């Protein structure tokens, strides 16, 4: 079950795998994710967005950055190996509709979950401007795939080694200043990036959808560990999300909740040197 059919390294830490999962491939829609667990006895359960699916082949594609214990083990699996537990598709699919001009922003590995949304938005008849940002040229992923779908593709890197030397919020701001401004922004990436994208679009009144990747356990609404404050409500990311109105999300609280286990893990690190997935603040969204 859940055999790995193909495996490819996209950049230093980023991997793409195709996994046999016929039911998930059939049911999944853009924006949804899976929970992966590699060892039934002691493994942790981590969420990964479905980057693509092929219902005919019965496979889904996952793109992830190997930064924690589980993602590193996942990266070490080879074609023919299996993922012990794979649950999905989870979460609400992206609301796809024809709104006019859509700006889609992907930071780092956030480009992976963004891609199926870009595809679906395009298919629904929208004009697409895609902004892909990364720290440096080597970490830019899915450039060709995005170019094939987008009406316009803007690449920026922190060090200027590829595209503009800028943060993604700079071209985003430019686009918002245009007349008319975009009808919708979708931002997926590290929490801090999403926060600043939302701050950038707020003064222009451009509705901004963000996709959150909080700590999860079950992914089915049973534990509440994934909860975030959205406006005056508490929402469970795994069942109510993962996408929310970026102007309403309390990112500061979310960032602190993401760091819940960091302190104790740092202390444990000396005795047992490895990083649990749930103890890092994801640098980039996987």
């Amino acid at each position, binding site marked *: 079950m859940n055999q790995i059919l193909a495996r490819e390294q996209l950049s230093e830490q980023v991997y793409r795998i195709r996994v046999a999962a016929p*039911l*998930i491939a059939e*049911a999944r829609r853009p924006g949804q994710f899976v929970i992966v*667990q590699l*060892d*039934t*006895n*002691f*493994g*942790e*359960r981590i969420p990964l967005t479905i980057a693509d699916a092929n219902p005919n082949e019965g496979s889904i594609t996952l793109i992830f950055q190997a930064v924690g*214990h*589980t993602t590193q083990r996942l990266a070490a699996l080879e074609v023919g190996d299996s993922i*012990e*537990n*794979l*649950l*999905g*598709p*989870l979460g609400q699919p992206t609301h796809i509709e024809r709104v006019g001009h859509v700006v889609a922003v992907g930071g780092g590995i956030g480009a992976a979950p963004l891609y199926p949304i870009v595809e679906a938005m395009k298919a629904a008849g929208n004009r697409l401007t895609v902004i892909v940002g990364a720290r440096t040229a080597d970490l830019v992923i899915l450039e060709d795939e995005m170019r094939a779908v987008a009406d316009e593709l803007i690449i920026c890197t922190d060090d200027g080694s590829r595209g503009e030397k800028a943060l993604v919020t700079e071209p985003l701001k430019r686009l918002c200043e245009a007349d008319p401004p975009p009808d919708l922004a979708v931002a997926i990436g590290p929490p801090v990036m999403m926060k600043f994208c939302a701050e950038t679009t707020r003064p222009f009144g451009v509705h901004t959808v963000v996709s959150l990747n909080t700590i999860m*356990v*079950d992914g*089915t*609404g*049973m*534990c*509440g*560990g994934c*909860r*975030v*404050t959205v406006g005056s409500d*508490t929402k469970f990311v795994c*069942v109510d999300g993962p996408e929310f109105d970026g102007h309403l999300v*309390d990112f*500061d*609280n979310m960032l*602190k*909740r993401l*760091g*819940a*286990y960091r302190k*104790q*893990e740092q202390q*444990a690190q000396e005795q*047992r040197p490895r990083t*649990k*997935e*749930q*103890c890092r603040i994801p640098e980039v969204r996987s």
Partner: protein
Amino acid sequence: MSYVARETLARQADEILTTLENRELSKKERMALPQQEMPAQDPVARRETMSEVTFGYTEAQARVEAMRCLQCKNAPCIEGCPVRIDIPGFIKAIEDRRYDHSIEIIRRTSLLPSICGRVCPQENQCQERCTVGKALKDPFQSVSIGRLERYVADRAREEAEGGSPEVNAETGKRVAVIGSGPASITVAADLRREGHAVTILEAFHRPGGVMIYGIPEFRLPKSIVDEEIETLKRMGVEVKTNFLVGRTRTLQDLLDKDGYDAIFIGTGAGLPKFLGIDGENLVGVFSANEYLTRSNMMKAYDRERADTPIFQPKVVAVFGGGNVAMDAARTAVRLGAESVNVIYRRTRTEMPARAEEVDHAEEEGVIFHFLTSPKRILGDDDDRVVGIECLSYELGEPDDSGRRRPIAIPGSEHVIPVDTVLVSIGNDSNPLITQTTPQLEANKWGNIVADENGKTSMDRVYAGGDIVLGAATVILAMGEGRKAAAAINRMLRGEPEST
């Protein structure tokens, strides 16, 4: 109750037994026998370990306890049992050392006696009505029916080794059973025995429902639940984990695309309630479900081997007074908390938790703050919990449930410094299946509506357990499963469905 060591209890029972062998006992003599205490781990030592707190009776203890039963003609205890086990019958068999007969009597109506003997709230069921308790004017002096049930069931498990009930010839009918808690386990067994092909679809990577992810090892060893699942597999039940109905496949797909002839929904009450007070999203606030799942199902208590982390508490507040709250509090004790405080709005007598769990929690050093309710949770600049502000209450007039209503005392606000809060105020039902199955009728709390046979508003679809009752008990879930399975068996034989 002060702690008495296992060896002492065993010796005392042996001594009593030698004076009683081979003679008829009068009612008066039976009533005079001392109630047999449950042997348990030392309260201090067990703060350090997840292994089961209670050891179970010795044979002598079981027989002495069985001799306390008066074999009442009207057997009021049976009226108190949700599945109406022939209680005097199985107890008499223990007294007579006919243990095979005893378990056979229990199994006529109960599928999970090793589990129910451990987790049933006997003091509100069979033991509440017991004549002995009534005569001694103390319900806690009733015959210890639950401990006796556990004794015979454990004995039978140890002797059985891998047998499984017989299965009728294949009927060619296929049934999907959603969830794998006690309701689903019962349905799967009863349907498979009839010769139907049964597939369990479970969202988690490990089957067993709340008995695996919620109730801790120290109260219900997971190996017992695993054995029940293994028995189902040996009977030919297929168990598919990582299958979330409503997402992986909709209920309608199971009927239309996958061609199941019937469906049973036993998805439980797995949606944690929060109070909706300020500070509930601070770092250090967890639902009991999350805390318990991390510890039990994800084995986070095994820090060496488990990948899943669990918050390291120092001073803990637990909101609530039910079994879930006791389990959360006692788990925190075992994970090294220095002080664990249960915050409960009413008093000890109103606590819904099993009395034995409250006693055990107290023995383990859990502190109870009765007539106290949290008003808000306080945090520091890093959004970490630093305390809770509480209000004191007093008991007023009885409410609809007959319990005296707690009334807040104005101006009684006070702060208890804590760094961890475990919210254990109950669970609603998970809305995933009802949301994705518009034809399926649910009530305003999200519970699936089912008739007395478990039949839902959809043809060929049945439901039972917590998803119908709201958060209830293992025995009620099992009882509902029994009834639904009987109705499904009738339907698959071609009899018309009810409603």
